[in-house]
Each structure stands twice: as C-alpha cells, then as structure tokens.
C-alpha cells in the first residue's frame, strides 16, 4: 500500500518537465498573435501536416495488411524470423539512416535516377511519403503477420469444418482479430508521421511541404520568432492529443511480440499461389533492404580510407552515453510506476506515463527551451542533461507499454495467490521481478534504440561542436557529403542491427518460457 503511494511521486519529474514546457509555451503570451491562425502559410502547413500523416499511415497500414495476408496464405515461412527482424529494424532504425539511403536511391545522383521520370521530384510530398512508407510499412506488416500466426489453430480447423468461404473467413475470423491492431497501428503511425521531424526536415524541400514540427524548428532556430513557434506548438499538441485519444478509443496495439510462433499450414495452397507469393516475398525483402544496400553502394574504398574515423569516436561515445542514460532513467521510472497501473487511478497513471507520445518532441523541447530562456537559466552549460530528461519522457511510453500489460496480467493472476500465501514484500518483489525481467529487458532495449535515433530534442538543445551520430549524418547529408553520410549511417545501423538481434533473442526467450512449454509434457 505504501509502495503504491510512493509510486505516484515517480510522476513528479514528468510533471515538472511538462509544467516547464507548458509554462514556457504560455510564458511569451504577449508575443503571441492568434491571428497567425488565419495566416495562409500556417493553414498550408497545418493541412499539409495532416494530409501527409493520413496518407502515410493509411498507405503503411493497408499495404502492411495486404502483404501480411499474401505471405500468410502463400505460406511463406522460409527465413520468416529474419524477415520479421528486418521489419522491426526498419521501424526502430534512426530515420536519418533511411533518409541517407533514400537519397542514394532517388536523389539527384541516386542509383534509380536514370529510370525515374524526367520531372521527378524527390523533395516534397513524394519524398516524405516514400520515407514514411519505408519506415512504417514493414512494421505494420510485422504486426499483422504475427497476428495471423496467433489465430488459434482450432479456429482455422473449425472454419474449414464449417466450410467458410473466403469472405466469411475474412469477416468472421480474420478481421475481428486484426481490427484492434489495424486501428491501433493507424493511430500510432499517424502520430509518428504527424510528429515526424527528420524526414520532413530533409526531404520536405521548402515551405510548400513543411510540417508543423519543422515549422516550429525553423521559427525558433532561424527566424527567432518565438511567438509563431509557440502557436504552432499548441496547435501541434492539440491535434496530436486528439489523434492519440481517438486511437486509444478505437485500437489496441501489442506492438512487440515474438515472430517465432508458427501456426501449422491449414489451407492447401495451389502451386501458382505458392510461387507468386514467394516471388512477392523476395521482392518485399529486396524493397525493404534497398535503401540500406544503396547506402553501401554509395561507399567507395577511397571514401573509407579518407573518412575521418577518429572524429567519429566522440559522437559515437556521446550518442551511446546519452541513449544509455536515457534508457536507464526510463527503466527506473517505469519500475516505480508499476504499482499505479493496478490502482483505481490506473487510466490516469497510464495517460501520464504515455504523455510523451501525446506531446510531440518538438513541443516539449521548445517549451522547456522557452521556459529556461525566460528564467535566464543557462541551459547551454548542461545541454546533455536536458536532452536526457526530455528524451526519457518521450521514450517512456515504449517501455511502459512493454511492461504494463504483463504486470497487469501478473497482478490479475497472482495477487490473490501471493496474498493468500502470505509472502513477504521481498519474496513478492523477487517473484514479480522474475516474471517481468524479459519484458523489462526488451522494453529498455527499445527505449535505448529510440533514444539512439533522437534528432528533434538534439536539434533544440544540442551543441554543434559535439554532435550525436544522427546529427552528424544530417550534417554530412545537408552538405552533400553523401559518402561520409553513408559511412556514418552504416556505423549507426550496425549498432541497431546488433541490438535488434539481441532484442529478438530475448523476445524468443520470453516466448519460449510462456508458450513453448505449454504443449510439452514431462
């Protein structure tokens, strides 16, 4: 009981940062002219932000669903685990890596340039959509694939027994299992694309196709127009909150689970379907890998020799340190939150813990920045501290979502039992930790990977003389040092691959403990 009250104090740092951000945002009230909302420039930015987010999320989710369907019914099982890891990798991948890859593919000197139409323009809506699709479509595909596999074997058998048509199969078996994920994914990807910063900053190509997030950054860093930045931040916050609440209402997303589980083949597959789906499968793998391959092709031996390897060391250590501390902090905070997830205020606690998903990175960063500026606090002496704190708040939802459900399940299953057995606090803690440890590990790893790719917060607080790896990539790419950008991207990519495989290893271990043993008998 005491622990539960104590847990609420853990929300204090979140509250303080949010308060700072909102005070910061309202601090410069006298500068704010709400007439800006009638400004055609702002209206254009707003409608473009929403338009690109809707298009990106719809395309990613629908394509992901259709592809997962083809792979499932075509029984594409070979290398499935590696394929699903690849899908996860492209989601967790710092977006600058992918952007460098897309530039190497579709850019002015891109590999695909000769085959593109003469009036082809990468910069603008097309570029943004391509990047968002590449980032999110594989992830949607992964979720749907896992959902397909998770449908009970006996349900398929029953469906065959009852001689369901394809349409009945879809309506009665498939869609009810996919619906929650479909809307959950739609909401999540909409939010991610709506808040997308790196992609639009690099591929937007001017005010015509700029989003709120980038406009905030530009208003703040280049035009020094704090009033405009604040209005845009409020606007961004309002719309993102609305989208978050709608997606919370409509969908449910268990977004990280093992891809290991394989349902046995239920339907006979014709030779034609089998081959065509396998060709589609190979095509998908190539498409997902293409930007990364293009990055490799960008690099020549001379580039590797001429690359300033030593100068990479400092950003590398700095990036890993920032991400590591962020993940550790998020871990500590989530462990303190846990008891509140089963309290009577569990919805409030979940909402508070997820506020990082609700408030876009740029809004919090700008708010805190404005607050510190207003208080004349010399934040620039401790930029890393603010980067870590804000990133902790922003990555917290990923960790919380990973640990919350298992904790609630644990509580539902075993709370009565452990009370009945009169276990001591220490014993209860040890048993619960044993249950939660794989989820902890996975969640912390994901938090680390997301923090690794941060650009938005660094864009506001970062110092140009000590960049992080993603920022270094941006700097190289924006000064057309594409080979250097490619090499740096591959270094960052290598770290991500390493961690994604570690992650998959643990997902599998978790899966084995919880499900594999089910049908085994001693």
């Amino acid at each position, binding site marked *: 009981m005491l622990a539960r009250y104590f847990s609420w104090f853990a929300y204090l740092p979140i509250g303080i940062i949010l308060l700072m951000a909102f005070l910061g945002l309202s601090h410069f009230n006298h500068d704010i002219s709400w007439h800006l909302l009638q400004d055609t420039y702002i209206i254009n930015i707003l409608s473009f932000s929403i338009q690109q987010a809707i298009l990106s999320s719809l395309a990613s989710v629908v394509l992901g669903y259709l592809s997962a369907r083809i792979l499932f019914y075509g029984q594409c099982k070979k290398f499935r685990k590696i394929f699903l890891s690849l899908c996860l990798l492209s989601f967790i991948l710092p977006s600058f890596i992918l952007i460098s890859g897309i530039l190497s593919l579709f850019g002015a000197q891109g590999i695909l340039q000769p085959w593109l139409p003469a009036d082809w323009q990468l910069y603008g809506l097309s570029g943004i959509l391509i990047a968002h699709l590449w980032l999110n479509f594989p992830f949607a595909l992964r979720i749907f694939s896992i959902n397909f596999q998770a449908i009970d074997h006996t349900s398929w058998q029953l469906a065959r027994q009852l001689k369901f048509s394809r349409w009945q199969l879809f309506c009665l078996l498939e869609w009810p299992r996919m619906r929650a994920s479909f809307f959950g994914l739609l909401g999540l990807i909409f939010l991610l694309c709506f808040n997308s910063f790196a992609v639009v900053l690099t591929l937007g190509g001017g005010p015509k196709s700029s989003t709120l997030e980038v406009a905030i950054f530009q208003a703040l860093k280049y035009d020094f127009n704090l009033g405009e930045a604040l209005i845009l931040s409020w606007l961004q916050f309002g719309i993102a909150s609305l989208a978050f609440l709608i997606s919370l209402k409509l969908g449910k997303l268990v977004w990280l689970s093992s891809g290991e589980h394989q349902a046995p083949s239920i339907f006979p597959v014709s030779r034609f379907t089998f081959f065509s789906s396998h060709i589609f499968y190979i095509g998908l793998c190539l498409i997902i890998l293409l930007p990364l391959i293009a990055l490799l092709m960008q690099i020549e031996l001379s580039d590797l020799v001429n690359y300033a390897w030593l100068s990479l060391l400092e950003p590398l250590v700095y990036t890993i340190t920032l991400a590591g501390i962020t993940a550790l902090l998020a871990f500590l905070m989530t462990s303190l939150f846990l008891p509140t997830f089963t309290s009577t205020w569990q919805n409030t606690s979940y909402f508070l813990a997820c506020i990082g998903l609700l408030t876009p990175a740029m809004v919090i960063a700008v708010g805190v920045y404005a607050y510190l500026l207003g208080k004349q606090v010399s934040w620039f002496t401790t930029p890393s501290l603010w980067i870590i704190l804000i990133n902790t708040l922003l990555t917290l939802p990923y960790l919380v979502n990973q640990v919350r459900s298992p904790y609630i399940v644990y509580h539902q299953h075993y709370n*009565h*039992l452990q009370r*009945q*057995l009169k*276990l001591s606090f220490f014993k209860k803690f040890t*048993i619960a930790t044993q249950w939660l440890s794989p989820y902890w590990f996975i969640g912390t790893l994901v938090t680390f990977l997301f923090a690794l790719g941060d650009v938005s917060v660094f864009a506001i607080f970062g110092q140009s003389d000590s960049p992080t790896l993603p920022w270094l990539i941006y700097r190289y790419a924006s000064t057309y040092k594409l080979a250097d950008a490619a090499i740096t991207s591959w270094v960052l990519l290598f770290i991500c691959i390493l961690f994604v495989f570690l992650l998959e290893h643990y997902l599998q271990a978790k899966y084995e*403990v919880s499900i594999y043993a089910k049908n*085994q*008998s*001693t």
Partner: protein
Amino acid sequence: MLRINQLKFQYKKSANLLSYHFSINTGSIAILQGISGIGKTTLLHLIAGFLPASQGEIYWHQQALHRLPVEKRPVSLLFQQNNLFEHLTIAENLQLGHKLPPTQILASLIHLGGDARWLTAYPRQLSGGQQQRVALVRTLMRPEPLVLLDEPFSELDPQTRTNARQWVATYAHTHKKTLLLVSHDPQDIEQLDAQPIYIT
C-alpha cells in the same frame, strides 16, 4: 469452530443477495454443495478475505475473521485456477507459504502419484491434474488450521481422485485441520465422511 453468522454479500445492486449461515466443528470436513453460480466460491473468498461482506460475521473460535486482512487470517485456500506461478518451477512453487523441508512435501506429492521429476518442470509442462495435485499438497501442508478447497479433485481421474481423497482425509485428521470444500461429486461426501452444507 468456524461460525458463519448471517453473512450477506451482493456483487452489485441488481445481483442476488447471497446469504450464508452455518457452522463447522474444528477438525471436521464440510462440503459446500449447490448449483453452479449459487455462490460457493464467493463464500470461500469471503472467508479468505478477498471479498468484503455487506453484513454478518465470520468467527474462527473466538476470533472475528471478517475484521482481519487476508494476510492475518488463519486460512489456506486452493483457488479454482492460478494456484501456481507459471514462471517458477514446481519445486519453487511448492516451497512457498510454509517452512516445511522439501523432502516432506515431496513425500506427500509422491503419495498422490507425483514424481520427483516434476520438481524441475514449469507448471505449463504438467497436465491440469498434475498441477492440481501440486497445488493441493501445498495448500493442505501450510500451517493454517482452516483449509478451503475450491473443487480440489475436479481435474483428477477416478483412481487418483480416490487416492487424493484418502490422503486429504488422513492428513486433515492427523494435523487437526478444518476443511471446507466445494464439490459436485456425491462420492466426496461419502469417502471424506464430510458434513454436507447445501447452499440455496
């Protein structure tokens, strides 16, 4: 003596008001009977302290149980499900809630047709009946004098069921336990020499 005195409980306002009134002598065995959904499990949860009674009293000797939290009641309860932590081995599960040496617990388990090889397994690696025997052994061997068993033999085959009944009756008798069971099987009353309590 366990005394349930005009105990009343209602899940929500629109639901039926459940009402209980009976007593059981110390060291005896009683079996709760009645149709499904009548409130047998609810009664066990009321005695164990997981549900708050709206009226009435529960006395164990002179002690008013209804005023005590779960952890302070002299009760050991076998739930219908979720009796074992799935992420702990059977050996680890068996050692929770008491201070008896593992060998003594194992001896009882083997008596019920168990196997030492189960100890290193996880609950899901055992069948429902095997899990039920593990949970039954632990529940009964805990030091609490009042034992509540919610359908303890439901997953057992006839032969194992007979063995389990014998073991439960002997153990309860020698250790002076007071048992309250929920069961639908008339043979349980006969073989356990139990007092039937009908809930209507």
